[in-house]
């Protein structure tokens, strides 16, 4: 990884100086029963991890719709971590295995879109594994940092159905056209 990529300021970050890399932002999907509890436990035990890790609580990792992951990348996440119960420990019996199947599929799709596999990872944590989960958060940030910002924010919104959630001011016509061209070149690379 060359030095200029490492230290490149985030394009949307007007105030960051050229020498200050933006810390990667990682969005974490947690299940209500195991990994969210583990995160609570990490908190109660005051185990430290990088502040750019942000959690979204779902009832089960099986609830993760691929569009959630795409939405996260499109909204500016540099990495997405899927967490849930260990296989066979699922509160809903086997639903985390269904999440695992989607994970593998989605990872390949993302790879074809040019998103490095390090940006989309998964981790199992039981409700007792707070320290392990916190360590996984730190590892994820370390994995994503050398890749630099993903910068998918400049791409057209991937979920146009949810108009209420988009911020139209971020996209003007020019950048949309530019982003579309980017996307097409990405597709060309992917195929």
């Amino acid at each position, binding site marked *: 990884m060359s030095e200029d990529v490492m230290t490149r300021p985030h394009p949307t970050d007007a105030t960051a100086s050229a020498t200050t890399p933006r810390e990667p932002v990682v969005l974490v999907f947690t299940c209500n029963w195991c990994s969210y509890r583990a995160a*609570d436990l990490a908190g109660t035990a005051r185990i430290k991890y990088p*502040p750019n890790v942000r959690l979204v609580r779902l009832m089960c990792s099986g609830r993760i719709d691929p569009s959630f992951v795409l939405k996260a990348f499109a909204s500016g996440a540099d990495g997405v971590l899927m967490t849930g119960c260990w296989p066979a420990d699922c509160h809903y019996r086997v*639903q985390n295995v269904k999440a695992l199947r989607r994970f593998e599929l989605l990872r390949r799709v993302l790879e074809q879109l040019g998103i490095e596999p390090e940006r989309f990872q998964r981790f199992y944590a039981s409700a007792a594994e707070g320290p392990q989960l916190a360590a996984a958060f730190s590892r994820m940030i370390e994995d994503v940092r050398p890749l630099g910002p993903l910068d998918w*924010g400049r791409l057209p919104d991937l979920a146009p159905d949810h108009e209420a959630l988009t911020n139209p001011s971020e996209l003007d016509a020019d950048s949309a056209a530019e982003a579309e061209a980017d996307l097409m070149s990405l597709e060309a690379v992917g195929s």
Partner: protein
Amino acid sequence: MTPNEPADSPRVGVYVCHCGTNIAGTVDVAAVRDWAMERLGPHGVVVSRDYPFMCSSLGQELIEDDIRELGLNRVVVAACSPHMHEKTFRGACERAGLNPYLCELVSIREQVSWVHTDKVAATAKAEALLAGGVLRVREQVPLEPMRVPINEATLVVGGGIAGITAALEIADAGFPVHLVEREPSIGGHMAQFDKTFPTLDCAACILTPKMVTAGSHPNITLHTWSEVTDVAGYVGNFTVKVLHRPRYLDTDLCTGCGICQEKCPAKVVDPVFEAGIGYRKAIYRPFPQAVPKFPVLDPDNCIYFERGTCRACEKLCPTGAIRLDQQPEEVTLQVGNIVLATGFEAFDARRVEAYGYGRLANVFTSLEFERMSNASGPTGGQIVLRDGVTEPKTVAIVHCVGSRDRNYNKYCSAICCMQSMKFAHLVREHTDATVYEFYIDIRAPGKAFDEFYQRVQDEGTIFIRGRVAEVTDVLRMPDEAAEDGRLIVQVEDTLAGLQRRIPVDMVVLSVGLEPQADAHEVARRFGITCSSEGWVIERHPKLDPVATMTEGVFAAGCALGPRDIPASVASGAAAAARILGRIQQRELALEPIRAVIDAERCSGCRICNDLCPFSAITFDAVQAVTEVNPALCQGCGVCIAACPAGAIAGTGFSDAQILGQIEGILMFSGAADVGARTASPEPKAPEAVPA
């Protein structure tokens, strides 16, 4: 303005909690408050406040007043984990007339102030999470809790003292209980003990009346020699399958006279109740006070099952109760609540090879010693060496075997110090032997525990502080005289600062407590979680110590972790109290998190049909659409994510809510906000990055 109006005109109130200094020490709460008003105003925030303790009654009143006076229709509280205070703030909303599900809790304590140290970065993260909460709650719709009826019957798994207590409490209140026990008799480990510390009550004297009461209680159905094989359903309405292993006798005819046991020619070592130092027959009752009184036949050791002849028990049974062709029988029970009181297993002392258990004859485990000192045990209460006759002149008791040891279990087994001192007292009571206790620390925090420690010291027991390195029969020092069967305990006396080699006749290893070997499997069967060691994880370690994460499943006794008899009894009674409260309410309100199919949008593709492990999804062939049974749906959301038509909606966790939260969380990340704030005092210096 009505409080429950739809999301298109959200009026959101934001409340930022200081939690004393728990949050305010790391997060600039005033800045978060002002930021929310300024930046989230366009997203519907109309009021933003901070308060030292939002969960206090004054904090809650703040929310209630704003709902009434400012016409809020959404509330976001940035405070602790939703598992802590979601109910509190939902209650506040409900009191002010707002649907309680229009309240969102954002965790800025467990996820921010307690896990981060950089104040600027922590404040920025709190803002981001708050934005996620605001955008999520905008999409929330009013919900009504689901009410499920509670079946009055309760299943108690495990017939030790914790399970017996739970069963008796519920049965005495007038409700039916099914008590399932894997062994032939209820009583658990306590039935094996001679005395109980520190009062030295006779264990059997205090336990057997409880066992008899449980066995004859009109509201208690015993399922001994049985195991739970399957659990289905949910709180209030579990369907449980229990496998009755064959006892090879008809319990309606058996009078428990014991003739079969007396006449059975097959005598085998009893590894369970007698801990391997006593014998039983192939048809046996583990101990005289067993409840129920019926024996069981062990086909692995029965001569008839081995060679096809014998049938002595069958021929001699005065009531003709023996049934050598009996088959296992599965019964199905309907229960509303479950108590898991599955207890512990003693640590296998063979694993610590240096202590020589299984190799050196006169090294005993604590359970063997319990049986030996028990007046109804194999030695009739005589403390003797493995030869069965010789009284020891010196006895070493080794603490923390398999506990407080990184090689085995890191935790303290809680009962071993007191158990070891009880042993010292019993050795002194039965023999004239010199007794050594080898300990790391003496942990005697209970009622009258330390007084007992004093008493044992006054009785002349020698306490040596140090973890035993080795128990050996090999002589190393010139002054060590060879004597048959003598053992040498090698220990560093950490108070005197020297190595000691102490010759003894008998070593008792005070083994720690471990979860049952099948603890993980049992946890899966009941849909609960346990720690990596195998102890059941409680809903909250302090405030909800007998509930589990699964509604309707409680735990008691050593299934939760090592504990002594009073603590086991207390947890059994506590679980019973929790269940009785629910039974008397007759129904329970559950989170309305369910999948709902919009028949208009369902194409009938049936992709979701096979995804539900609760059989909640059915296909209506006539209408060619799929339907969800809300009573069976558990709300995992797998079908919602799978539906290619987007026809399945998830209440409480809808796509719009989740996408809104993602949008909100990331809205200001990477933008000028975070970049400017984290520019200089960032904890991660650029040079720390590997090139």
